[in-house]
């Protein structure tokens, strides 16, 4: 039986993974708020609308000794994948932020608030945000402040502002700090005229200045501030104004990247394109994966195709933020069960956080029944100097079956990669690629794309 390592912070309860079941204890610290939430009607309406994960109260015996102190044990359905805010593209983080604010607003109408604003409490089913922490809800105390404001700004607002104001992606910074971007940090890099914009002044500049000023004289001012009452209308107005502002945030980087227009500009002939589509369609129809990972998903063209061919859920990974923006738009517009995530495959998310166990590595969360890696291998093998054997090993570890495309050195894209550097990749050949695959898996089918000599291989690890 395992305590989920990321759930240690809350005295109100803990999460356990037992034989594939997800169980949550509610301790005596959290029981009154949980019961208030349950009887408020909020819980039911949120779960019915698919805004928070469902839960069922189960017999405490299923947790054994771990449930001795617990007042309740809840069982949640297992989610298709757990992802972290440092893996979310801009639009995904933004939709999580809006979902959090909407949840706050609607709960407050029933005198329920969220005690924190951790972005890790939001997960995704397709592109639909889902709140997962029951124990963050508690009863509203009239006149109280928004306790999660600081955390909301750090974990949602400020990372979004990095891209909206400066065209910088939040992912690397977020993964480093894990708690997002503080007001003091963001305030330091704002230009003076940005600091005068009302919303930035209110949610970034002033909190940063007050925080710093309080290091010299915290006591009296803080005491005075704590004695004041925040009218509920002001609380709601704060949430509403933040929501409107965040909804209007757009990435600042407008210049197209290499991959954002890949769909329209890639160098396949129509014939090869339809042959490739047919190959993927056959593979998916035959294997019917519950979860398919699309590595190097780009704008999600083949993810969509796989969903059409019978994959239940697709998680797509790409390094290009603009391609991910397009992929997200595709998923939302067409109602796909497709989650696009940011991934630098040469540096995937590690085990990290407290004791190196709070947030799990991508590999530990691997849950794919199948994968597709189209025009992907050469980015690692040539673009990042990862030996071909290791790239193949890594892919085979991620999923028991899949389709991998091999792009030869004669391909214009690979030639371009090699144009300015010495070719130190004598092993990067189709023969070696096939040899490596065959030594670890069975090749079910393969297909040569005529025009550019690319090869599609369907493997199965038995």
């Amino acid at each position, binding site marked *: 039986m395992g305590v989920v390592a990321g759930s240690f912070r809350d005295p109100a309860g803990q999460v356990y993974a037992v034989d594939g079941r997800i169980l949550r204890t509610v301790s005596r610290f959290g029981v009154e708020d949980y019961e208030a939430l349950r009887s408020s009607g909020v819980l039911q309406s949120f779960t019915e609308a698919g805004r928070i994960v469902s839960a069922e109260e189960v017999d405490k015996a299923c947790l054994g000794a771990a449930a001795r102190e617990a007042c309740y044990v809840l069982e949640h359905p297992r989610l298709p994948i757990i992802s972290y805010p440092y893996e979310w593209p801009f639009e995904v983080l933004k939709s999580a932020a809006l979902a959090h604010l909407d949840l706050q607003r609607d709960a407050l109408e029933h005198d329920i608030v969220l005690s924190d604003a951790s972005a890790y409490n939001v997960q995704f089913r397709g592109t639909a945000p889902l709140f997962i922490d029951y124990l963050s809800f508690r009863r509203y105390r009239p006149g109280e402040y928004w*306790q999660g404001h600081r955390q909301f700004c750090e974990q949602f607002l400020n990372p979004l502002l990095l891209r909206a104001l400066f065209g910088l992606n939040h992912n690397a910074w977020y993964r480093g700090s894990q708690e997002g971007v503080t*007001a003091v940090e963001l305030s330091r890099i704002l230009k*003076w005229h940005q*600091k005068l914009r009302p919303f930035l002044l*209110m949610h970034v500049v002033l909190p940063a*200045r007050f925080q*710093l000023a309080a290091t010299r004289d915290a006591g009296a001012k803080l005491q005075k501030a704590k004695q004041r009452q925040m009218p509920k209308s002001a609380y709601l107005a704060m949430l509403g104004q933040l929501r409107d502002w965040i909804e209007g945030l757009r990435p600042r980087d407008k210049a197209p990247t290499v991959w954002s227009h890949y769909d329209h500009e890639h160098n396949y002939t129509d014939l090869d394109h339809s042959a490739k589509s047919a190959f993927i369609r056959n593979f998916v129809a035959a294997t019917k994966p519950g979860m398919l990972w699309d590595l190097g998903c780009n704008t999600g063209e083949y993810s969509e195709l796989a969903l059409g061919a019978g994959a239940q859920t697709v998680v797509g990974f790409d390094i290009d933020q603009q391609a991910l923006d397009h992929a997200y738009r595709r998923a939302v517009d067409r109602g796909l069960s497709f989650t696009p995530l940011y991934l630098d495959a040469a540096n995937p998310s590690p085990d990290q956080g407290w004791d190196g166990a709070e947030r799990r590595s991508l590999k530990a969360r691997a849950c794919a029944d199948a994968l597709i890696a189209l025009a992907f291998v050469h980015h690692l093998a040539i673009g990042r100097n990862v030996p071909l054997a290791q790239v193949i090993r890594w892919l085979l570890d991620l999923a028991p079956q899949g389709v991998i495309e091999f792009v030869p050195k004669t391909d214009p894209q690979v030639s371009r990669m090699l144009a300015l550097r010495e070719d130190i990749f004598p092993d990067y050949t189709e023969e070696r690629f096939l040899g490596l695959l065959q030594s670890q898996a069975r090749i079910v089918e393969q297909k040569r794309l005529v025009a550019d000599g690319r090869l599609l291989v369907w493997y199965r690890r038995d």
Partner: protein
Amino acid sequence: MPRPGLLFCTVVAIFSYTPEAFAYLDPGTGSILLQGLIAGLAGGLMFIRMYWKKLKAMIAGRSRDETGLGGDAQDKE
């Protein structure tokens, strides 16, 4: 009287400068102080609104007395 240019530069200098942060302080202090400010403003606004209403009622009451009209006539205004 300070020149507007000088005032502008001072404001810019104040907001452009971010001093060092120190430990031993709850990271939410800045947010609480901000919300204290908002709560103060909201409270002040409610106070003003309340007195404004009272003032309006008083003026309305006086004008009613002068015209000799009753409450019904007021409602139809």
